[in-house]
């Protein structure tokens, strides 16, 4: 990078204070949607889910395996949360409990991540955006 380029942003201008409220409202409205990749898989769980990058494919394989093991309807969400791809479990018909687990660690999601997931569920139709 040249010296002059280092003096200037190489991305775009900064947000003005007056624009902050709008940005926060937008991000809240679509919280959990988008990110690196987003997809909702509805019943029945498909045998194949298409992804455009290898990282996602790996996550999908894990997701499919976990889904099979748990006999759950699984929703997949690939937003960056700091903990990898999320798995969202919903109870199958007749079951009561809902499980939320991380695709990589298998650990339960934090309450914040669960909120993220619930926001995602409200969106009727999604696609990859990253």
């Amino acid at each position: 990078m040249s010296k002059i380029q280092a003096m200037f942003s190489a991305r775009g201008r900064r947000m003005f204070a007056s624009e902050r409220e709008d940005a926060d409202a937008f991000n809240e409205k679509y919280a959990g949607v988008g990110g690196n990749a987003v997809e909702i898989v509805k019943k029945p769980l498909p045998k194949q889910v298409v992804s455009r990058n290898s990282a996602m494919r790996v996550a999908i394989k894990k997701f499919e395996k976990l889904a099979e093991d748990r006999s759950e309807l699984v929703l997949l969400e690939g937003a960056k949360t700091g903990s990898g791809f999320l798995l969202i479990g919903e109870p199958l018909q007749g079951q009561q409990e809902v499980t939320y687990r991380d695709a990589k660690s298998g650990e339960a999601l934090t309450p914040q991540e669960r909120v993220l997931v619930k926001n995602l569920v409200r969106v009727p139709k999604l696609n990859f955006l990253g």
Partner: protein
Amino acid sequence: MRILDVIHQLLPDGTSSPATNFAPAPAATAGHEPGIACPVWPPDIFAVVGTIVDRSGCYTEFSPNREELVLHEQYLDRIDAIVKSWVLFAVPDAVTLQWDALVNNFANVELSQVKENADLLNILLVLLASADEVSQGLGWERDRLNPDAHWSDFAQAVFLNSLEDADDVRAHLSVVLPHWPRSLCSTIAPDRVVVLPKSITADKGCTIRSLSHNLSLLPCHTRLDAEWRLVTREVSDRLNDDVRLLLVPFPYDIPDGSFTLAAKRTRLKNDTTHAAFFRLNQHWLNSETGERLTGADLANQLILPLLVEATAAAGGLIPHGVVLPECALDEDTVIELTPLLAEAGVEFLIAGVLEFDQVKKRWLNKAYTLFLQSEVGFAQNKQHRWRIDKKQAESYGISFDGDDPGNEQWWEDIDVNERLLPFYAFRKDTSLVTLICEDLARMEPAMTAIRAVGPNLVVALLMDGPQLAARWPGRYAAVLADEPGCAVLSLTCAATVDLSNKHHKASKPGADTKRVVARWTQARDLLSIDLELKDGAIGMLLTVESYQKHQTTLDNRSDHQNSRELVYKSHSSLGVGQPQAGGA
């Protein structure tokens, strides 16, 4: 090539539809195609459909049928209804049905046959127009003076992707555009095709450029790295629609030794010659005692006094931009100059810079376009080398190849590999792009992008002779003003203008010469104006006015006056009698 082949080429991994696998390209005999889900993000739809339309040439079929104008009005109403029902992440059924019809019913249609199929044409037009209309405002900022103006979530999503902020706003971005600012597309990589925002809809000719108001279709980024940058400033004097530019045609003198031979002409075995190359040495940045001119010197002795004079001439309004010609400065001078101009309230600096890349050991002829108040700036390299011929060298009185008197051509010794072309949205509805000299004349690759995007203002930095209408910069500027309708400012240095005029007078005694250091060419009335520097003057204030412009597409969609055109207002010479810095 079939429609399906285009889709596979652009979306090799599919559109990741729920419960839908993207089938590999089937054999040509395949019949019904499995569903390929409609992309959710409008620019992706535009990229696919636009590519089909462009490659098939079927845009010639999209003008209204004069015998069926009522039907066409119904089509326009239909597009309006689709756009009103389209919200982020939820494509209306009216669009997905058209998309599904495209991939299920017409996937195997050859591009050469598209024009022959009325149903297919109708589908393509509805998809293209809908994606374009719902993309209004993408790449631009909100109208902060009119908060009630329409501002879609699509536009807000792109806006948030355009900001520098790496804090919580970006961290929580719910829509991440992976290729932005290179392309608006989400699922289509820029090495396939690029979609960028758009300023001007071409109103002449009949191409895909005349079919969209808000999105432009560009070739893949490997040919040209085009970008779209949001650089608006917070305080806008939009109550006054002028754009004021301080033109500084520096240097005013080119000392001996500024042009040197970098490589002599070499004869090859096959009776051809490998060309000779010349190099520029910026001796005009040295004082008579050999000391290097600093940015502070340049500011205090030249530019700031001109700014004061220009501000007074504009009734107290400081120029928005300062423009210096090709190769006028070096990087260190710019580094020292920019804070002083920013402090003075200048919004942007566009300057030609000659720079040596220490890592790759190559010279670069650069343009810096620096938005000082919003602290965003980029450098771009000249994309084509200048070739001086003997006649031009004589007109400038330069001679640096005495050992090869038969040689008549010398190429500029610069690297032209990295081809970046940033477009800058510097007002909520106005964009500009910078070009360096030869790049204004060469058709590829920049002109293709400029014609597609249609920036409101093209600033061309030159080291050239007088900017007369009949000379090459004036001719090429007129082409851009004609289509797509850009305003073009070309600026050269006073030194080469004076040298050229001196030679002209010597060869044609009594000839009339003008110090036309710059030229303004605009779309309105195709006006082209000499910007002549008075004798003894060292700068110029150019004022242009920004007007709302009404545009329509080939299919008669209105842009509701959302675009702008820049129109010449006035110019005046500055600094008459002032001492000149650097080579005065």
